[in-house]
């Protein structure tokens, strides 16, 4: 679906005429859908891309986001001959070779580690070209552009976006719609399960996270009684 179709549907859901919305602006609807798509992608890692990385002799640290602007997580790295570079941690690389940051002997990089959002470490440090497969973030949806997540899951973006729009109304309107979040998270969980299976088949190094999803009905009940707790402690009724 295009951004225009999604925003029209969303505005109809919240009782607006898409051609002459009065309470919600089209831009607000589009921003809510964009946020929904970004969260869906984070939950599922359903968008992938590849980028070549040029490794240089003597350099052990690289910032992947300078090569791929929408980089999220490294899924796999392969050498030019197709051989997989083995994933490690910094601790494992140090345990295998305390001088790993200054090892240039070898025929090809054989281990990599990731730290933070996009910092990659390779050993040994050899001039080589490798290909990184990574989970990427979605391109910002515009009215003329199309949503990037699988088409069968695109309606669930409206579920999230509807609640997101209701946040500024609160009260009964929010309470009536908050159950839609459950549909959004269930759709994301289903998609993540598919991506997880496929990622195992592809021997990817990172899988979509398994999460403990919140019970929003409980959150609202609690909010009626006490001020919301903004820390990670569960709200008690």
């Amino acid at each position, binding site marked *: 679906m295009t951004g225009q179709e999604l925003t029209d549907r969303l505005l109809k859901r919240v009782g607006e005429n898409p051609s002459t919305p009065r309470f919600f602006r089209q831009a607000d609807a589009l921003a809510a859908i964009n946020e929904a798509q970004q969260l869906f*992608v984070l939950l599922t890692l359903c968008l992938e891309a590849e980028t070549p990385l040029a490794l240089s002799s003597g350099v052990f640290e690289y910032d992947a986001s300078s090569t791929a602007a929408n980089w999220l997580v490294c899924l796999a790295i392969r050498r030019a001959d197709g051989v997989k570079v083995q994933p490690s941690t910094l601790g494992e690389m140090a345990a295998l070779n305390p001088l790993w940051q200054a090892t240039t002997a070898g025929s090809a990089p054989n281990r990599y580690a990731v730290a933070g959002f996009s910092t990659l470490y390779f050993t040994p440090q050899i001039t080589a070209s490798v290909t990184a497969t990574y989970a990427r973030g979605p391109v910002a949806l515009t009215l003329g552009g199309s949503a990037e997540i699988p088409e069968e899951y695109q309606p669930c973006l409206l579920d999230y976006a509807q*609640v997101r729009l209701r946040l*500024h109304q609160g009260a009964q309107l929010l*309470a009536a719609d908050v159950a839609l979040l459950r549909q959004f998270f269930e759709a994301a969980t289903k998609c993540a399960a598919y991506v997880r299976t496929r990622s195992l088949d592809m021997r990817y190094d990172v899988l979509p996270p398994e*999460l403990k999803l*919140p019970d929003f009905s409980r959150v609202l009940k609690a*909010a009626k009684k*006490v001020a919301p707790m903004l820390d990670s402690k569960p*709200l008690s009724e």
Partner: protein
Amino acid sequence: MPCNVESLLTSSIYPALNATASTDLVFWTKATLYEWAHEAVQRLARAAAGLIFTDTRAIVTGTADYPLPARTLSVLHVTAADRTIRAANARDLEARSSTWRAAEGVVISHYIRQDQGLTSIKIYPKPATGLSGAVRATVHLLPPVVSEAAAIVAWPEVLGGYIALRTIAAARTAETEAKMPEAAAVAAEIGLVYEQIAAKLWGGVQ
């Protein structure tokens, strides 16, 4: 692509606060929203080790203490003269030698984190004459202060929703006539989902 808090304010935060621009805000100010956005950034930075920096300092003969970069939250990895050195504590080193603080050597083997590991490390043994190279500390950083003058957060753009939701939650929790505990609770709860994801994808820390 990094998060731009100024764009988030316009696209995602003002609309949830019944405003289209900072001039429409009735119960809050733009500066206050930036403070809450900064608190959100700090909170997620403590939930996931996202920002990584490798600091390099030349080895100085006889000097055991090397400063860590400002805003260090934790130390991930340290090398001295390209050799990985192990984290230790004073008790470990005292067990090795009661004079460990004065010991000198050309093979550095351990480091300890001083001042809770936030401002400097002490390497053991002290570099002796003849040892050259650098002490490299790979650390996890707290992002710099988010403000109108520094609105870019070096995070994946997909985490913008977290900043927006936490800012909205804080605004709707503040004691004003626009307080909405239910909206704040839902926004904060979705924020917790982001925190779980971030910790699982990029590594939990403190």
